[in-house]
């Protein structure tokens, strides 16, 4: 990918406090990953550049760096400069090389992303999907590790065949991608162990 010189004046600011903001965002993601279906709130000041929402931008700033190629879908491509400037992360052309994927458009098929191997299932891609909205007690019923009985969540903007695609992802265990779903300043997580029913 040819790189243009960056015009830093057009780059939106990142974390006001890089150390404590990153810590608080990570704790939100950790709480959400440990309790699938629980919604975490990103409680820091951050004006993300379009098309990123605050939660997606915050997670990228907290977790991406030169070790983590990030793949952007066509809708998220305008955020490349912001991510390169603040995170120093390579932008991956191939989804199979991505540690993180930022999806601002429709959720694509999951198999092209890195799935990890049976020996190293942790090398799979973590997808950051910007949903239309997140509601507690919505139409999806979740079960699996981190959930006492079942959890309910409403996610706007998932494709119609998501339940089937996610069952296929479940079936790959221990391989498979993990999903962080963001909306505005909120996020929830679907690790590969979580089963969903509509």
């Amino acid at each position, binding site marked *: 990918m040819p790189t243009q010189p960056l015009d830093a004046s057009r780059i939106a600011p990142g974390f006001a406090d*890089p*150390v*404590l903001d*990153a*810590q*608080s965002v*990570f*704790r939100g*993601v*950790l*709480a959400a*990953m*440990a*309790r699938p279906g629980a919604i975490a709130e990103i409680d820091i000041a951050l004006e993300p550049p379009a098309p990123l929402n605050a939660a997606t931008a915050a997670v990228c700033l*907290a*977790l*991406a*760096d030169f*070790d*983590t190629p990030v793949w952007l879908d066509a809708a998220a491509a305008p955020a490349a400069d912001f991510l390169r400037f603040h995170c120093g992360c390579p932008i991956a052309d191939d989804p199979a090389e991505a*540690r993180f994927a930022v999806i601002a458009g429709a959720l694509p098929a999951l198999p092209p992303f890195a799935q990890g*191997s*049976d*020996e*190293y*299932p*942790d090398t*799979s891609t*973590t997808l950051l999907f910007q949903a239309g909205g997140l509601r507690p007690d919505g139409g999806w019923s979740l079960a699996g*590790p*981190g*959930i*006492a009985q079942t959890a309910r969540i409403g996610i706007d903007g998932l494709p119609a065949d998501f339940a089937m695609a996610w069952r296929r992802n479940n079936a790959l*265990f*221990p391989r498979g991608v*993990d999903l962080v779903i963001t909306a505005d300043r909120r996020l929830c997580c679907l*690790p*590969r*162990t979580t089963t969903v029913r509509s």
Partner: protein
Amino acid sequence: MTMSATDESAPAGDDEQHRTATIDGYNFAFLDEQTKRMIRRAILKAVAIPGYQVPFGSREMPLPYGWGTGGIQVTASVIGPDDVLKVIDQGADDTTNAVNIRRFFAKTAGVDTTERTKEATIVQTRHRVPETPLAEGQILVYQVPIPEPLRWIEPRETETRKMHALEEYGTMQVSLYEDIAKFGRIAKGYNYPVLVNGRYVMSPSPIPKFDNPKMDRNPALQLFGAGREKRIYAIPPHTPVKSLDFDDYPFDVETWNQPCALCGATDTFLDEVVLDDKGGRMFCCSDTEYCAERQARAAGRARGDAA
């Protein structure tokens, strides 16, 4: 900087007493930000794959391997200024290892520390799970010496990794069976292997098998850090954790034929304390905070009766 702004032996509960002056010249919680990001990513994948050991780039810490470098790195990557930290070593809050790690985070992160399990948001532990049940939202960080449960059976990492990948755990069952053939029971008393969420065989770290049932469906998040061996793994809340056994030799925990000599508890893990060189000994709770609180409550009741 003054070395001891805190009296570590002060009773818990008073925040001011447990504040230590933070030291200049270090990043928040000691580790640099790139290291924290790397460890945080490893922790998230560990939570997503319960019981699987995620490799990570373990750093040199200002204390030797074997003193909890893995647990400290996990805690340093998780902890924030609002957290309240408890550290235990074999159940005790007042041993060298526990005091030093608590002081380390008080100085480098400026966090409040406590000896009360209920007040802590993060409990770092060496070799015990607290007797007080943990609650939703708490994080238990284990210090792990050897994260690979199959290591004593198969020394090659390439092979154990393949065994985990293929869910090939027959040799582990055989090693437990050999115990039964030799001793008539499964002789493992600590580091008793568990099966996490029906998939990965995992080392619970050298906790007594007495604590294994507490891991099962625990509402707290359990994180494990092995510094020398460079592995992080996790058990999400409410996740089934089963101690390996046989139908005709079911798993059971230790029992004692006397209560704690100090607080009278009959449902805790007891340490044997040698009192003299004439064979004198007593058994008392290994969890010092739990024991002290029971003694304080009993003393309070006695005073109340007298009044």
